[in-house]
């Protein structure tokens, strides 16, 4: 199974995502430069964390114009699994692949710390190996992770079960204190209506080995492996098949 890790010039978690997929999960992984126009036959696409183009404007605001994003959109439209982590999530919001926007953290400061998130839905390619209500201990590291959407949008997200992760206490309770950045409804991650595109602010790739503090993030990446290998997502493997056909 092949993961594509998209590299924007200011990506800085690209190597971490690659390491987690390749060396911890033992899957095939490839970096895809943002100026490229092909996803190199990937089954899963990861938009990693970082500061895509410096993000002096809004986070991710320029990245959506990168050539590779057209291909990511095509891949997503065809049902392929796409995971946006942190800055990758922000890019997905700016690109309109997910609804809503990010505000500065309530603290008006960058925050790097472990938080707890609860898995709200398991019918996405990035939560299929999780239990409903499972609490994961995963780090955040962002200055603009305060998720916001208009009330009617939030209501639709909730009704459609598109909220995938929520900030909670260790016991899984949704409380204001457990919300590190002020996100509406404690939203830490969500999916699109087709459920194949998922974005979240916490960093699962930083939580794949106990040696560095937590292995809870593995469940998210393992979900992708399980979902794709079970053929649960129509376009999953489409890229690989196309490459095979071309040979």
């Amino acid at each position, binding site marked *: 199974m092949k993961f594509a890790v998209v590299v924007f*010039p*200011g990506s*800085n*978690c690209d*190597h*971490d995502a690659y*390491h*987690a997929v390749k060396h911890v999960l033992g899957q095939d992984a490839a970096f895809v*430069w943002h*100026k490229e126009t092909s996803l190199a036959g990937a089954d899963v696409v990861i938009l990693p*964390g*970082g*500061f895509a*183009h*410096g*993000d*002096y404007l809004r986070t991710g605001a320029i990245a959506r114009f990168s050539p590779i994003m057209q291909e990511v959109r095509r891949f997503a439209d065809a049902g392929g699994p796409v995971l946006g982590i942190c800055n990758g999530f922000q890019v997905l919001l700016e690109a309109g692949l997910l609804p809503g926007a990010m505000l500065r953290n309530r*603290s008006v*400061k*960058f*925050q*790097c*710390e472990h938080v707890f998130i609860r898995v709200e839905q398991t019918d996405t390619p990035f939560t299929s190996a999780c239990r409903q209500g499972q609490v994961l201990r995963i*780090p955040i*590291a962002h*200055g603009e992770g305060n998720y916001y959407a208009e009330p009617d949008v939030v209501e639709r997200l909730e009704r459609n079960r598109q909220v995938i992760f929520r900030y909670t206490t260790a016991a899984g309770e949704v409380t204001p*204190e457990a919300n590190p950045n002020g996100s509406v409804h404690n939203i830490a991650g969500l999916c699109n209506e087709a459920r194949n595109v998922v974005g979240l602010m916490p*960093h699962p*790739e*930083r939580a*794949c*080995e106990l*040696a*560095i*503090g937590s292995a809870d993030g593995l469940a998210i990446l393992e979900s992708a492996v399980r979902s794709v290998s079970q053929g649960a997502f129509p376009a999953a493997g489409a890229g690989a098949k196309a490459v095979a056909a071309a040979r």
Partner: protein
Amino acid sequence: MKTIPDDLIQQHGLTRNEYEHILEMLGREPTVTELGIFSVMWSEHCSYKSSRVHLRTLPTSGRRVLQGPGENAGAVDIGEGLAAVFKIESHNHPSFIEPYQGAATGVGGIIRDIFTMGARPIALLNSLRFGPLDDPLVRRTFAGVVAGIAGYGNSIGIPTVGGEIAFDESYTGNPLVNVFCLGIAKADEIVKGVASGVGNAVYYVGAKTGRDGIHGATMASAEFDEKSAEKRPAVQVGDPFMEKLLLEACLEVMRSGALVGIQDMGAAGLTCSTCEMGSRGGAGIAIDVSLVPQRETGMTPYEIMLSESQERMLLVVKRGREAEVERIFDKWDLHAVRIGEVTTDGRLRVTHHGEVVADIPNTALTDEAPVYRRPMAEPAYLAEAQRLSLAALGAPPPVREVFRRLLASASVASKRWVYRQYDHMVRTNTLVVPGMGAGVVRVKGTARALAMSVDGNGRFVYLDPFLGAELAVAEAARNVACTGAQPIGATNCLNFGSPERPEIMWQFARAVEGMGAACRALEVPITGGNVSLYNETDGRAVLPTPVVGVVGLLEDASTVVRRAFRADGDAIVLLGRGGDELGGSEYLKVFHGLIRGTPPVLDLALEAALQRLLVRGVAAGLIRSAHDCAEGGLAVTVAECCFNTSLGASVDVPAVAAAVPEFGQIATLFGEAASRVVVSVEADRAAELVALAKAEAVPAAVVGRVGGDRIRVAIDGELAIDESLADAEDLWANAIGRWFDRPRAVA
């Protein structure tokens, strides 16, 4: 004919004698551009003219040293064909004038020094000093510096894995911002800042040159006064995204093998990079500054040569491989511009639209820069300050009050408010996060890890520069050894007042001697560093603050030890011996407002043995946690081992023999005797550790047990401290944050 007026010479910070020397070396009067070039290259910041004779005495070689001082950074062999490349640098003056940008560009500068050597930067540390936080202006400086460090490091994606912060009135008008960076390179692929090969092209790449930062190096070589705010235009503005592009592109260019040498344009910008690269390679460099990409119109050659605009690099490329290098930079949307070439004559020749505006032998700017053996005199304050009369202080305060106030003292309290703003996990190598002792990162692709710590206690150095500097080396190395890592190399950042004052020069010289002695005894050679002088405001110097960064190698990353206790029932063992050591302590400062007495005695042989014991004890799987006793002494150390664990502790220690018996309890609990470490060990293996300690001739005793929800410390069986863990932790955890935010629950 004389065209350079005297006041212009003076404005350039050059003395009459220095100017005469320039006339002699050039055999003519300098052009204005040349005057500017000499001024920055001969500034204290670039030339080390006051410090060089002393720095020469430091040990700089050893079996692991691959690169000592003189290059952009030092390098040590860490096995498996890899090198750790590291250095520490100050950005004190800019950080006072403009805290956010000053600190941010300090981070940017040290990162460039590391990747310039062909190393990928993987960790940052910082050592910061500020005035007391009850001063609103200090809070603004403090918050700005922290945000600046965060803003730059987080964006570029290099984790800040540790550091230290202390507070004292002497830093109110002159904060210290020292930043350390470490990178990994292949040992046989270290790149140098050398220009060679006649006809090889000299390239400029990175941000455009603007008028920012002109005379930054000269600013860093002058004292502050009330007019300092007028110097704001000399502080540069950082662009971490540009630096990220440069970092990736330069590493890619280095891997291509098309490069001869590379240097960043830091202090003294294009001037320093051209003449230093030429000088190291025994070659000359000829550049045409009209080709330099410029941000503003109408810049003069003087301005272009002296600009300290950030995120710029100078490269010498092998002949015939220019297109390849240009292609790599293009990929990263960077425009590499050919601005000159390497020559044979050993001169820096600068032209501007065909006109020669500077033509100077490189060595005149580097090796032949002035060297001063400045007058030294023992400071008048010293004898008096070393006299400490505890009896004159009256009855000591209650022990419980001391314990609680020391935990909440800003220098002791948790720095979480600070490091939560730093991305300390990016690159997924961080084994020991900030606030847990030395920072430790694993080296992917190997089983190894590197531990690093920066330390320096200005009070100790003020009271005894030689001993204080020895203690700084010992503490940094001890912190590294507490993780189980073997200390293998060091870097220093020497922050002092004006070298033109004999008492400051005396402090400096004695501190360097002490540092050398400790580095030799503990086998940690100094591979590079930085000197920051003129840290004064209105004639008052900061506490003399040499900061030492020590790097250690842990062969098996999985054995790494942190400071926090691990399990209920573990035995607590105290390594080292106590003493009646309140001189220069946090206690004296917090309760009596005093910096007095003599610093703790240091037995370097015992210190070396203690560090060997720590490394062996961790490797053998005996030591489960380790934390050295520093500010606040034993009681604070035990408490810190409990924090972030929800485990309490009960210990019972022998009283130290105190000269003033009324202060016996205080000295036992809060004295800062050196070479002591609190470790925990599984209860049934405690005897094994004590035996190992005996074999190394390190005093060791089981003093207590981990567990419960209280911190209890008894002296010879009599309970002296009995505090709820939750209460103590709240005091410690929120002391800094409450100056800025509403208090929050302990995480």
